[in-house]
């Protein structure tokens, strides 16, 4: 059982390092508190953004924490690929440059996988091939307003900034 865990851990850690390097300008890795007894202790994430000392997840800035946790999620997805992905507002704490990087990574994954992302951030919404609008009508009924093909022009995402 411990073998199976270490196998998954090592693989996911490997993917994490790749993803994190792509999304931030730094290096990072998953860290077992006690590699000898993984089931007796926990796992944290350490990251070294470019030109900064190593930091544990707990002491990063709000957006750095989000980017690190998202990288962990992408790593899990690389380990157990699925035919479709749904993301609900994962970019809330990110600055615009980081939103762009995450949007680009999703766009690449979406070349051969279906990826659906809910977002309020304009450069995420406008990166998509298609944009679905949702509004609430007066009788408390949700309405889906058109699935608009997005050619990078004026997008459906009028509600995003």
């Amino acid at each position, binding site marked *: 059982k411990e073998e199976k*865990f270490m*196998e*998954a*851990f090592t693989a*996911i850690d490997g993917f994490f390092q790749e993803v994190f390097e792509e999304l931030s300008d730094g290096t990072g890795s998953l860290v077992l*508190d006690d590699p000898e007894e993984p*089931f007796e*202790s*926990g*796992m944290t994430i350490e990251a070294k953004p470019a030109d900064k000392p190593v930091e544990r997840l707990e002491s990063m800035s709000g957006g750095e*924490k*989000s980017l690190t*946790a*998202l990288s*962990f*999620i992408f790593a*899990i*997805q690389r380990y157990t*690929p*699925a*035919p*479709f*992905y*749904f993301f*609900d*507002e*994962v970019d*809330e704490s990110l600055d615009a440059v980081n939103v762009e990087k995450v949007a680009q990574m999703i*766009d690449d994954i*979406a*070349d051969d996988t*279906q*990826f*659906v*992302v*809910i*977002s*309020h951030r304009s450069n*995420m919404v*406008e*990166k*998509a*091939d*298609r*944009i*679905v*609008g*949702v*509004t*609430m009508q007066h*009788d*408390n*009924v*949700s309405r*889906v*307003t058109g*699935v608009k093909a997005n050619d990078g022009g004026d997008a*459906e*995402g009028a*509600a995003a900034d």
Partner: protein
Amino acid sequence: MHIKELRLDGFKSFGEATSIPFYEGFTTISGPNGSGKSNLIDGVLFALGLARTRGMRARRLPDLLYNPPDGEPVKEASVEVVIDNESRAITEEEIRKAAGEVNDPDEIVIRRRIKKTSSDYYSYYYVDDRSVNLSDIREMLANAGVTPEGYNVVMQGDVNGIINMGPTERRGIIEEIA
């Protein structure tokens, strides 16, 4: 394999039967706060058996039934996920195992319905209109790489969840996948 259509009727804020086409590639969903975007995701989780009720932000199954501002909640809610299976990510064998027969292996329709009777609430599951168990659906989807622990559906708050969880719980995420 990809989802090609999502149909919701009476589910949470989808009081009117709504059919939404989905395509391969990258789609974004946007709209005002409280418009129903996360409810859409809840619909997918509901139909594919990927979440507990609490994960769909409903205290109990009945909370998933559309409740109009003035009047009574509806008695029935259903969500249908139409899967494009041309890639055969789900084999004909697996379809037969779940549904008992193979209708059209290029397309698989998974449907879940809750219904309120005078005394209780019932949950029904269908694959290609054939009645099945939740476990049949989960098994069929797991073979195509769709599982609750795979993080292919990341809900609002999940990223913060990973940030705020204790190290033991975080290690547990990998444990579940292994």
